[in-house]
């Protein structure tokens, strides 16, 4: 509910800000009273794609709230989930899909992606994910780097991804704002921008910032890292105080982002591997009065699973990554299940990878299998939350998507069977009730502009032409 209000408020503020003021010609300089740290001059232009009602029947439904319904159906209409259950009414104009033998889940959500900012092909011109020019760049917004033609969005769609958060990279202590997208093929990022989703603030612990800046003026140590966060937030606190006191001085884009994080309007997402560093960041958050939404990567989250749960912080984790650098050396395959089993634990399976995002269901399956090996049996109706409801919660969009509950966005995946398998494939993917991917219908398999015209000689050859 709070989300919807926030969304409404943000829209209002954006509208206010677009009124020209007397004092200046720039539309975004607000008056003292209406000053918002999170006004959006680059608003979402997302429009759902129209579709007749769709009803999928006789499937196994994992609704994302923890329920499993066998022989059940889902009705989508006007972009929303209308009904889920064993006896779903079928409107006369509805498209009917036989779900026999198939499974239905909410659309998959990846809380950690660099699609569009580190796009394929990975040429230097497409390297837009790290503003590695200063250790604190809270003023940059990942959305301004997104190339919507990244073919990776579409392979992710074929893997069931309906929403995703695009974050800046982890070179910087504070890398900038992340943005949440609906995974619809589009020519502009604004048309993908998830309406009403809060921004994320990307921060990074440990090796990356000190490696990147060690020879560029620092920080060069972990203690330097922490001093860097503290200095940034101390300045932001000062800035907030001045603004609240009516200061109408020069707007500072960096401080706006940090102030938005302190206010709770921007969700804080921290790249952090080691257990001890997570504990330090929890203290940092308390020192400056912000909330941490999730620790990302957290290969040692299992060592402090109870602490994370008690603090209400999610662990956005990989199923099996480890060893690529020192701070990932203690990664284990039970990280997710051990974070999950803590009382009120919030485990999320994330990708940070254009390959992994295509198969978050399989990443979750690996965690389940490793749990089973140590006697922790996690049913599918629970595990699905790691890639739907839990990321939605940490991203602040759980009021709108992440579960199949009436009134929510009709973001739905129809799988060819149990999704927790190497053999699982998304057959149909719906975003706001529109079928935007269909494995059996080439007309519903979008292709990036970049991929056009790449195979013409081959087609000629097939027709007996050029060789």
């Amino acid at each position, binding site marked *: 509910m709070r989300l919807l209000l926030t969304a409404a408020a943000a829209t209002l503020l954006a509208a206010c800000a677009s009124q020209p003021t007397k004092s200046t010609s720039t539309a975004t300089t607000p008056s003292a009273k209406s000053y918002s740290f999170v006004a959006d001059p680059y608003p979402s232009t997302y429009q759902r794609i129209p579709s007749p009602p769709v009803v999928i029947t006789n499937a196994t439904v994992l609704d994302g709230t923890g329920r499993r319904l066998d022989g059940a159906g889902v009705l989508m209409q006007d972009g929303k989930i209308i009904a889920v259950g064993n006896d779903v009414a079928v409107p006369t104009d509805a498209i009917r899909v036989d779900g026999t033998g198939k499974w239905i889940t909410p659309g998959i959500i990846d809380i950690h992606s660099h699609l569009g900012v580190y796009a394929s*092909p990975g040429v230097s011109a497409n390297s837009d994910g790290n503003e590695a020019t200063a250790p604190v760049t809270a003023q940059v917004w990942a959305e301004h780097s997104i190339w919507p033609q990244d*073919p990776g969005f579409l392979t992710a769609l074929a893997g069931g991804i309906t929403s995703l958060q695009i974050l800046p990279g982890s070179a910087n202590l504070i890398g900038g704002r992340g943005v949440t997208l609906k995974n619809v093929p589009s020519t502009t990022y604004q048309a993908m921008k998830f309406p009403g989703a809060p921004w994320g603030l990307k921060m990074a612990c440990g*090796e990356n910032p000190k490696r990147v800046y060690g020879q560029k003026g620092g920080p060069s140590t972990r203690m330097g890292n922490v001093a860097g966060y503290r200095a940034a937030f101390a300045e932001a606190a000062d800035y907030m105080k001045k603004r609240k006191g009516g200061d109408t001085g020069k707007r500072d884009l960096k401080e706006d982002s940090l102030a938005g994080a302190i206010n709770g309007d921007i969700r804080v997402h921290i790249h952090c591997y080691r257990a001890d560093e997570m504990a330090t960041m929890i203290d940092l958050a308390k020192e400056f009065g912000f909330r941490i939404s999730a620790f990302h990567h957290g290969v040692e989250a299992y060592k402090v699973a109870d602490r994370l749960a008690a603090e209400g912080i999610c662990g956005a984790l990989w199923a*099996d990554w480890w060893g690529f650098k020192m701070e990932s050396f*203690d990664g284990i395959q039970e990280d997710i299940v*051990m974070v999950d089993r803590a009382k009120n634990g919030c485990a999320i399976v994330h990708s940070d990878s254009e390959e992994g995002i295509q198969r978050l269901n399989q990443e979750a399956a690996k965690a389940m299998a490793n749990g089973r090996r140590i006697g922790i049996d996690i049913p599918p109706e629970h595990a699905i939350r790691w890639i739907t409801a839990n990321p939605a919660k940490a991203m602040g969009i759980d009021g709108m998507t992440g579960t199949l509950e009436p009134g929510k966005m009709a973001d739905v995946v129809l799988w060819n069977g149990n999704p927790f*398998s190497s053999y699982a494939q998304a057959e149909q993917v719906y975003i706001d009730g529109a079928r935007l991917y269909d494995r059996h219908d080439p007309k519903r398999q979008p292709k990036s502009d970049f991929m056009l015209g790449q195979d013409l000689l081959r087609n000629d050859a097939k027709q007996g032409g050029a060789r």
Partner: protein
Amino acid sequence: MNRFVITIILLALAGSASAQDVLIRNATVHTATAQGTLQNADVLVRRGRIAAVGHGLNAAGAQVVDAAGKPLTPALFAGINDIGVEEVSGESSTVDSGESLGTSKDMAVRPEFDVTSAYNPESVLIPVARVEGYGWTMVAANPANGGSLIGGQGGAFRFDGSLDPIGGRVLFLTLGGDSANLTGGSRAGQWMILDQLIDEARGRIPADSKFALLTPAGRAAMAKYFGGGGRVVVTIQRASDIRRLLRWAKQRNVRIALAGASEGWKVANEIASAKVPVFVDALVDLPADFDQIGATMENAAKLRAAGVDVGFYLSSDASHYARKLRQLAGNAVANGMRWDDALAGLTRVPAQAFGLDKEMGSIAVGKRADLVLWSGDPLDVANTASQLWLDGRAIPMVSRQTELRDRYLHREESVLPPAYSR
């Protein structure tokens, strides 16, 4: 817990000399041979070798394991990687996988570089791979800046504590956009340099020529591989590059295998008729670069359908994530490959490609008893390895990671900090 301790002690005492006699009963035996899959079958192991495969086998004195119908496969191939020659990828002091004796602009061509002499059988990566059912790997020498397009030589290692590789050495070569910067900026320079190396190896360029790139040892190494004497694994992606390579290898009598081949499906028939095995990363379906515009999830299936022998390998982070290989195989099946062919890509095909198929890679009489029992279909990530045997010895299903797991899984059982738990 006690059982593990005892097993470890036995192993420590026994070393690799004392292979066990084991009878694995009532398994779904995936032989990775023409025999295919045998239901409710038994596998008898004598002195570390497979002595019989069949039904209702008896064996006095052998330890009996009831497989309860679960799948039994050959120990899996862990791919082409740096297991044993790197510990933490980001820490160069722990990485021995490539040499770069030149400066970043000067090429130092050292085909005599043999990475197998860096191999550490006590690497923590080895038990991590073993507990997931992997029994052997191909350790590669990687091209590096200041090195050349020829990474050097590697070899196959079994995960049984051996210090030395099994079988012959393999030469590693990288072609295409990936290594154009190692040959002056153009991939055309790669063919120029390769032909020069052949000329040097055959004495057509005097050793004291100012253009000579090879040391005497390097000339000897090149002569061996460029006379058809050993397998050359070529990392290559683009279809047109692959076509040129096939032609070049035929003309120069070089026995190649391809690694990568993201666009291999486009030239599958040519690869098949050249009888060149291919190692694919079956999850590569994006144009990561301009050499891989045609990457597709169907690559493995299409290559196999054309008659190519297809093995699997991971194209990145291949050492720490070796356990991911069976997910590749499973996804290849989901995208059209036959299940038996996918299993072969993790067992028989790599063994054949590296000349080890008389020893391993399938379940057949006379082969080493390198076996894995699974909780279910091994190509499905929903299942895990239950037990690995190497030469018939049951390997403890313990790794640094399982120890970390157990320490923190049970930490509430003690008032002492985790550091006091085993």
